[in-house]
């Protein structure tokens, strides 16, 4: 088991390194010139100025050297010249062209908001979705089941941003059922943190839960048809316990996989949620960075963070999987 985790950590690490190389190559070797935005940002951009900036930024060096400098920065402080010189403390992901601040600092500043949205939303949709799914499976074929399946299809067919926007307009603006949205750090004012995030949580929770209800229902229906469920009933186990202990225990396994990837995607930033509910998180930040003038260090950082999140989520899923399924654990 330990060996399995170590092997997985190593391979995950390799994936992250390869992604970083790929991202680096893509943006720094692509058709657009990273020096361009910097040059344009500081007044008129002449050919000489551009050349100078390229020189300063080290763009004339070989790609390998440039990547080496970038990778080294993750572990030791470096100085980066973009027009003028900037200190970049380790772990350094570069200096933002837009704000000229350290990307790492900005990331750490934006991250708590995104994290708050993701965790709260996921908690709601996971519990709600799984619970609805289990109940639907248990009473499958009844009107309640059909209502749930139909309703969930309806909700999933509405585009998420529309749903979020309508919820915000009506529930917050029009009827003021929910408090105004926005982000206040938890450490500053827990009450305001909670109030500001409540609507985004509910919106994410409800929309995603329909999907999870359907997954869970499918997985549960299959599991409830298994021989070992019949065995449990034949032993005299109470029907609730048959469903929630024997059934859910097995049915939850495939849900874990989907959840891991969904959650990673949420953590990488939810552009619509952040824009609509006016929360300054990673998603918004990433969106801004790709708008002209492009902020290459920020783009690199956000892509890299997403890659790490996906890889880590996968790793966690595998580890959880092996705890859930003894057949995986033992092999």
């Amino acid at each position: 088991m330990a060996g399995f985790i170590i092997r997985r950590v190593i391979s995950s690490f390799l994936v992250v390194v390869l992604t970083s190389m790929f991202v680096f190559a893509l943006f720094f070797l692509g058709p657009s010139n990273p020096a361009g935005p910097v040059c344009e940002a500081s007044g008129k951009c002449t050919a000489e100025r551009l050349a100078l900036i390229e020189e300063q930024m080290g763009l004339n060096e070989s790609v390998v050297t440039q990547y080496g400098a970038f990778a080294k920065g993750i572990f030791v402080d470096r100085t980066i010249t973009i027009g003028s010189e900037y200190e970049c403390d380790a772990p350094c992901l570069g200096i933002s062209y837009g704000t000229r601040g350290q990307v790492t600092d900005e990331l750490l500043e934006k991250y708590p908001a995104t994290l708050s949205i993701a965790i709260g939303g996921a908690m709601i949709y996971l519990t709600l979705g799984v619970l609805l799914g289990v109940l639907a499976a248990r009473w499958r074929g009844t009107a309640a089941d059909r209502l749930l399946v139909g309703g969930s299809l309806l909700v999933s067919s509405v585009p998420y941003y529309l749903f979020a926007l309508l919820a915000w307009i009506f529930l917050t603006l029009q009827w003021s059922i929910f408090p105004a949205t926005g982000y206040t750090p938890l450490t500053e004012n827990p009450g305001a943190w909670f109030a500001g995030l409540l609507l985004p949580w509910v919106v994410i929770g409800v929309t995603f839960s329909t999907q999870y209800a359907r997954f869970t229902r499918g997985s549960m229906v299959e599991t409830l048809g298994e021989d070992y469920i019949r065995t449990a009933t034949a032993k005299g186990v109470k029907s609730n316990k048959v469903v929630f202990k024997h059934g859910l225990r097995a049915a939850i396994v495939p849900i874990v996989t989907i959840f891991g990837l969904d959650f990673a995607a949420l953590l990488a930033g939810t552009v619509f949620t952040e824009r609509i509910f006016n929360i300054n998180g990673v998603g918004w930040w990433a969106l801004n960075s790709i708008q002209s003038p492009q902020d290459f260090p920020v783009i690199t950082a956000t892509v890299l963070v997403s890659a790490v999140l996906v890889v880590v989520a996968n790793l966690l899923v595998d580890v959880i999987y092996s705890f859930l399924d003894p057949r995986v654990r033992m092999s």
Partner: protein
Amino acid sequence: MTTQSEAVPTTVSAAPTEQPLLEVTNLRKYFPVKSSGLVRRTIAQVQAVDGVSFQVPAGTSLGLVGESGCGKSTTGRLITRLLDPTSGSMKFEGHEIGNLSPKQMLPYRKEIQMIFQDPYSSLNPRHTVGTIVGTPLRVHKVVPEKQVLNRVRELLEVVGLNPEHYNRYPSEFSGGQRQRIGIARALALQPKLLVADEPVSALDVSIQAQVVNLLTDLQKEFGVAFLFIAHDLAVVRHFCPEVAVMYLGKIVEIADRETLYNRPHHPYTQALLSAVPDVKQAAVGGRRERIRLEGDVPSPVNPPSGCRFRTRCWMAKDICAKQEPPLLQIGPKHKVACHFAGEYGAMPTSPITLNVLGVDQEGTPVAGATPSAEDLNEPGFADTWTDVETLKGNSAPMATSLPSDSRPASEVGSEDRGTRS
């Protein structure tokens, strides 16, 4: 059962040939067990088939029996070359087919066909019966495209299905009928050898007999030889004049059916036969006296040393752990791999294999002895054999002073007793 002789031209060659249709020598198949992770190393080998030798004469059947996982199906899949052998030789009509590339194998595929166990999963549900049975005809271009349908109808009729049902899908047929479709497909190319892997085990009791009878008729009519794999000892006995018993990748006993079922000499065969519940027992009442085997079949990844059966054998002695018993011929058509081979209740007290192995009672090699066990893994039966009955009385430890090349005459069947008439 309708079998029309005009429908399919027979391929039976009237004159019996000396050469067996299929001859398998020392066939091995090891499956690697891979570690998980990025670099998948081979950490062990599943010794699924480990040095089996046998012959299938043209137009007859060899039965292959044994418990689940003993390597029956793997052997069948090796012969049809669905799997590549790890080592060993397979000669079809004298031609080596064990090492042929898929392309070189093509002409032989026509000759060797397979019937599968599960009539539900072995037929593509999206193809009509006509397509399923006609595909081999088209692939091998044995009949012009225009004739394929006619031929398919003929084949369906041969296996006892309505020839006009060629347009139906497998799901419209019952299990027994599907198995007939599988048989029609296998027959399409008029093979000389059919490898039937548990052809009736998935069928209902009342249907099994229909399919067994169909196979019997087909064999009579077209002279097809069978390698008949099954775990049902009664069905194998009914169908096959010669039967091999496998245990953990090896053949432990092979003989004509009368000998094997009436006078089994291997402890495992004896246990296997005594375990079969018998309807006739009803007349007596209660359960029969049986040989009780303890425990389960060990893993083929790490089989026991010496004799693979020794962990469950009530006869096991020291030598069984040290020396692997060779498949010794002990009768005109009877080979057995056991140091103490003999009829149940009358098994020898002293190993019968000492001379061929050149070892003493405890299994320790004797200096100066020349073991001849290497030659014993030849397929088929020789004209001379070791006579167990005379050996049995001889419980004295083997005389090490005996010149190794002059074995006592009593141990080899004498000319008149030991030669096939």
